């Protein structure tokens, strides 16, 4: 039987493509996943936990390892072995901690001799570390022959602010039809949040993260989703998992939920000591 030409040519073309596809499937498969947001606020993170989290960022989301080596001279960027101690000697009058923070947020401010100014600002896109992540990264860098003494407050409050078109969209103030004062009542009453969380002047329990500046460090989407699905949104490092009641979202009425979120969105750190209803108490 004579095979039609189109079948012969088609089979040949498919075979060629099949070989390419087979080869591409037979080599290591690496995919680029969406970096996760790390949240460490709450103040109860031990230095060890902080350093470990920072190491993860150094090797992952921060993409530092692409250029920096530890204990090995790189051509693109300085070796970071011993940077915790060496950083104190880089710029006269500047502490190791301040130098490391400056290097992350404004890498062009000081260049180690022999290296080009190619490092991006790590709190800006595309890397875009948030304050918690910067805090952990600094701790990791300090841990290399230095003393881990960095606090969240050492990281400038302007660092890690979301920018770009997405940031512009997020930056637009979210207007919820809720009552923050009523929300605070829910926080302290029906929601029983106060049993585990601190919110400015109210609450003092160390069981869950301090929410005094939650509106500043988390997005409204995160806060809303965390109430509805506590386990699904992950657990802040340093705190035991699955303590937050999974049915909290279901026990609240729609109004109570919106009021509670509205209250949480008022917690921006600076005014937390005088949280709306707390001043009345």
């Amino acid at each position, binding site marked *: 039987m004579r095979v039609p030409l189109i079948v012969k040519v088609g089979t040949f*073309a498919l075979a*060629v*493509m099949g070989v*390419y*596809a087979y080869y591409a499937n037979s*080599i290591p498969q690496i995919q*680029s996943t969406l970096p996760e947001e790390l949240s460490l606020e709450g103040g109860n993170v031990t230095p060890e936990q902080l350093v470990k989290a920072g190491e993860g960022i150094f090797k992952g989301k921060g993409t530092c390892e692409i250029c920096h080596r530890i204990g090995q001279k790189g051509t693109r960027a300085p070796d970071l072995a011993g940077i915790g101690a060496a950083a104190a000697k880089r710029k006269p009058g500047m502490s190791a901690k301040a130098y490391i923070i400056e290097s992350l947020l404004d890498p062009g401010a000081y260049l180690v001799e022999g290296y080009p100014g190619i490092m991006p600002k790590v709190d800006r896109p595309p890397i875009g570390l948030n304050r918690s992540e910067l805090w952990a990264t600094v701790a990791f860098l300090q841990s290399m022959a230095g003393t881990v003494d960095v606090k969240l407050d050492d990281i400038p409050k302007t660092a890690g602010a979301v920018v*770009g078109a997405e940031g512009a969209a997020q930056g637009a103030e979210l207007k919820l039809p809720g009552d923050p004062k009523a929300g605070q009542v829910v926080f302290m009453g029906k929601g029983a949040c106060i049993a585990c969380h601190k919110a400015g002047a109210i609450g003092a329990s160390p069981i869950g993260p301090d929410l005094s500046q939650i509106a500043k460090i988390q997005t409204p989407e995160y806060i809303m989703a965390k109430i509805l699905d506590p386990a699904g949104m992950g657990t802040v490092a340093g705190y035991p998992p699955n303590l937050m009641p999974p049915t909290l979202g279901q026990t609240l009425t729609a109004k109570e939920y919106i009021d509670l979120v509205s209250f949480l969105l008022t917690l921006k750190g600076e005014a937390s000591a005088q949280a709306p209803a707390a001043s009345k108490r």
Partner: protein
Amino acid sequence: MQLDVIKSPSGPMRNFQTRATLLLAGILLVVAGPAWAQGTPGGQTEAYRSFPLIGSRLAVWGAAQLHLYFAAFILGVPMFAIIVEFIGWRTQDARYDWLARQFMKLTFAAYSATALLGGLLTFIFITLYPRFFGYLVEIFGPTMWVYAGLFFVETFTLYLYYYGWDWLSGPRKGIHLGLGVLLNIWGTILMFVANAWLTFMMSPSGVDEAGKLTSLWGAIYNPTWMPINVHRLIANITFGGAIVAAYAAFRFLGARTDEERAQYDWMGYVGNFVAVSSLLFLPFAGYWLGREIYAFNQTMGITMMGGFMSWLWVVQAILIGVLFIGSNYYLWLGMERIPGSERYRPYIPYLVMILAAGFIVWATPRSMVATLEETRAMGGTHHPVLGVLGVMSAKNTAVNLMILTTFVSFLLYRRANRVATVSWVRSGMTAQWIIMGVAAAVVTFYGVYGYFVESIVRIGFSVYQVLSVLAAIVCVMAIDFPMFRRARSTGAIRWGQIAPRSQYVLILLAVSFTWLMGLMGFARSGIRQHWHVYGILRDTSPEAVTPALGYAANMITAVTAIFLAFVVLIFWLGGLGERGAKG
């Protein structure tokens, strides 16, 4: 009965109406798109919508890649059609005019498919990615009007150029050629406009930190715009040539007469010649693009070459190797139908050796994902010997030497049936070999020297390597043309008497070019990772993960197979007209 839609009186009108409708649909999309993308009356724009069964990402991926394949074809083919027509006009050789018209017939058939797929792609963006598309409209709105207008102009120029072929012949041929030039100019500007949108996604500029437009020209003339323009311009010619050559190969294999075989053998040769000639310049444009990506953002550059995409270049190396070896093999097979080519046969094994060595170097990875045992066995993440061949110094050297070797193959083919008769032939040939030897030495020197300098210096060496090869090609040809002007012929080329396997080589090259385009499209798009617009607009869809190479390869294969099936269908439809005319 007249069935040829191109020649029948009602055919063009029918075509015209169909295309005019498509065009209007396209314009409406551009006009209506921004309004549509606004979303609900409350002003809230839904960021993503899902596509049934395959998901939004595969839908947009497939439509974009198919559109790009067709667009590359219809932009590339007219470029060399006009050159071929010009040669036919100057030499009064009717074969060239026939060939140019054949090329344009293929373009014409693919034009509607390109417009349809462009419309489909726009629909997908508007319906599935409304926030992203809305943002692009905010930045590039005015250029979309320019694009739509140019599309009109290009379409009418194409009609006039194609349908006016007979009318504008003879003394009016110059006008026809002018139309062809105009057609290419419109097409090139169209591509440049569209390139501004996609390169902005990679390397945004002309916007502030919040992504607000500060300068439209800044957004257009972003860091990767011109490198992509040049890269695509060259690649389109290569692609168009390869597809035309494959078409000719198919017709050759199915030919029933010697005359047909001779005709399509020649057409295949010219298509392949165009493809390979432009292919030689493609790596240079690629270097430039790579450099600009690094200059724009080191992280992006390193992600591309050393990050999760590093294995992609090994696959690319396989394809480049196939293209170079295939192109050379076709030339060597072609020499078999040229009387006098036997003189050059002894050189071929050496050319094979250089190509094979270059291929091996190109395909050697610098570092690889390995198990702990493998890493220990190697003594580190890099292999102690082969790791040396994995860096760009070695690869640049290899590819430049492969380009030089391919050029030598072409030179041998060119002079296969010619014996130079000028008095200075010996010194001319000596000069040619010295020039190529010097170029090879320069390439090798900078390749080796690159190991002893910092990367920032090493990057600059690739420019010297490229320039030395380009200079060698220009100088050698400058000697070759006068040297063989009045050459003695050892016999005419026996067109049509080439081994059928050579035609499968042409098909192999076309399939490989197409697949490679898909792969590089994945690389260009994938290095943005989870960003629609790098650093400005994040991809927050559930499909924001950039897939691994195997997944991408399967997708590329599927889309390429669909494209080739479409091409076969379109060519078959074109052939129906011919059969009808003959019948």
